[in-house]
């Protein structure tokens, strides 16, 4: 079950400078990304999903800063890499599909020449690689004629597909998708996600899929990492999450998804608002919202504990006791 990790993130600490000093957004994060699988990273707004994506890709800009940690990708620490070396890796070894694909394309250039730019940037002859461009456009189920269009002539969904095709053009080993379907209607969203899933199955690319939408998360992911207040609260496979959640947060979120056959009164509402990582809190970060918390929860900070299940980690000191209290 446990795969071969393509990327290992160790003790990652990321934050933003503000008027009140440095605010930690991601605290001491450890994560393995297994090869050939889709790792879904989920969390509420402000939990640090996008910050994590940008930190992994090293595209985080001031006032954001990576304080410490290691991101080992193919034996090398991405955080220690020179910018030139990093640039050459991008789109070839590791690629990124941005959140705002609506504006990700250069408005004054035809799509084809934007594909050319990517090839030129990596020292490849555009004319010779024409077939490759066509192939990647077909792969996202777009007509080849869009290559001769300007971005404003395409619909939102087509632009999103174009961006995916561009990010996958040079067949990277790892792709980070940061909420790639933001701003699209559900039908288009569903189609695109299905295609991403299919491409992944066919090419066996490793993907990190970032989302706040739980139904998408469960639809897309092989493995799941749940973020709360800048920490991973639970990590495991898709089925482990559904069958045997070990952190109250995951459990409550899963129960909050409306389903056919479940009465509205029985759908759980998670009370309170998401918080950022609070360094002054000695105890569990989730304590303010946890309905099952005990007095010892506020006394020390829980570590990520390995369960007896394979590759299933959780950050709760009250497990499995809380499960007995969970009635729904």
């Amino acid at each position: 079950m446990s795969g071969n990790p393509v990327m290992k993130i160790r003790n990652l600490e990321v934050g933003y400078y503000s008027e009140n000093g440095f605010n930690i957004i991601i605290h001491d994060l450890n994560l393995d990304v297994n090869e050939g699988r889709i790792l879904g990273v989920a969390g509420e707004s402000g939990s640090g999903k996008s910050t994590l994506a940008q930190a992994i890709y090293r595209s985080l800009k001031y006032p954001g800063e990576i304080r410490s940690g290691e991101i080992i990708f193919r034996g090398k620490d991405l955080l220690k890499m020179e910018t030139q070396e990093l640039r050459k890796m991008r789109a070839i070894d590791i690629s990124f599909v941005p959140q705002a694909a609506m504006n990700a394309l250069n408005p004054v250039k035809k799509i084809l020449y934007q594909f050319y730019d990517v090839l030129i940037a990596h020292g490849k002859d555009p004319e010779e690689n024409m077939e490759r461009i066509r192939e990647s456009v077909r792969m996202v189920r777009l007509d080849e004629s869009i290559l001769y269009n300007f971005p404003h002539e395409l619909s939102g969904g087509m632009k999103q597909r174009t961006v995916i095709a561009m990010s996958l053009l040079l067949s990277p080993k790892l792709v980070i998708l940061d909420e790639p379907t933001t701003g699209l209607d559900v039908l288009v969203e569903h189609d695109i996600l299905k295609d991403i899933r299919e491409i992944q199955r066919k090419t066996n690319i490793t993907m990190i899929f970032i989302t706040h939408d739980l139904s998408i998360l469960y639809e897309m992911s092989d493995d799941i990492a749940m973020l709360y207040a800048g920490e991973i609260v639970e990590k495991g496979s898709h089925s482990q999450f559904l069958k045997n959640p070990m952190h109250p947060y995951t459990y409550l979120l899963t129960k909050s998804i409306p389903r056919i056959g479940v009465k509205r009164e029985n759908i759980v509402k998670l009370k309170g608002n998401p918080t950022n990582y609070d360094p002054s809190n000695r105890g569990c970060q989730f304590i303010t919202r946890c309905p099952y918390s005990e007095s010892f929860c506020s006394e020390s900070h829980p570590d990520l504990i390995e369960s007896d299940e394979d590759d299933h980690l959780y950050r709760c000191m009250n497990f499995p006791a809380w499960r007995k209290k969970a009635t729904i």
Partner: protein
Amino acid sequence: MKIPVRYIINKIFLFIVVLFGAITLNFVLPRLIPGNPAETIYQDVVKASGGAVNPVYLKQLEAEYGLSHAPLYVQYLTYLSDLFHGNLGVSITYYPVPVSTILAQALPWTLFLVITSISISFFIGNRMGRYGGINRNTWKDLTVDIFSMFMASFPAFVMAFIILDIFAVNGKLFPLGGAYSSSINAGFTIPFIISVIYHAFLPVLTIVLTSLGGWTLGMRNNIIPNLNSDFINYSENLGMKSYQIKSIAYRNAILPNLTGFSMSIGLSMSGVIIEESIFSYPGVGMYMITAIDNLDYPLMQGIFLMVIIAVLVGNFIVDLLYGFLDPRIRQESG
């Protein structure tokens, strides 16, 4: 590339409508001034001679300057038909030389001066702005900023005097005035061209220096948001080289400056008036000052018309250019 026919037709139509409006304004405005030039001159002559003037002289003056008391619409039609025949009236100062002859002589020099200097300053200014914007918040950017703000707010005529004083009066490196050396025959010969460049150097330098700042600041302010845009971030994410990223940002940032380019051609036409008279450059501006001094209404009107047409043609050309550079514009109107 497909030629956006409808876009071009739209622009030509707009050009004709605006030109017609401008011509009409040029007709109406002088007629809103109380009295007429003949009367003004007549009053001056009467005052100077102590009243001993034959009133017929006023009629003569009016006839000479083509002034009539016919109904306004008749005057307007006459004006339009004269205009289409290239008849802009007769200059009072240079009587009996027709205004069109004076303009034909002066206009090429002004156009040469304006187009050369605006093109140079547009090119250098945009490059400087790009340099400042790309190196934002460094001493390089600060230097560019301070220099361009200083230059942009420096009065052009003061600059003209300073440059004339340093390089021509004291330095004796460049001539004090004229468009070419009087000892050389006009024509497309190498000594003539060299002489023209030599004479135009100081006026061009003045205009370039004083108009540079606007382009620089404009470019810098356009390129900074472009450098933070989603498509630049994505280009970086795809591992594009730094020159590729800069050129993407530059191409997107230059669009607003191009609109400014067309407007500045027109504005400079009126702006060079003072510079031309300081450098005694035989362009439209020098004649303009003379016309104002001598209440030469036909000449003034002719020059105004030229300035208007220059602005319109400049706008028209850039509209067309814009259509080619920005595909979004091309489609919205086409």
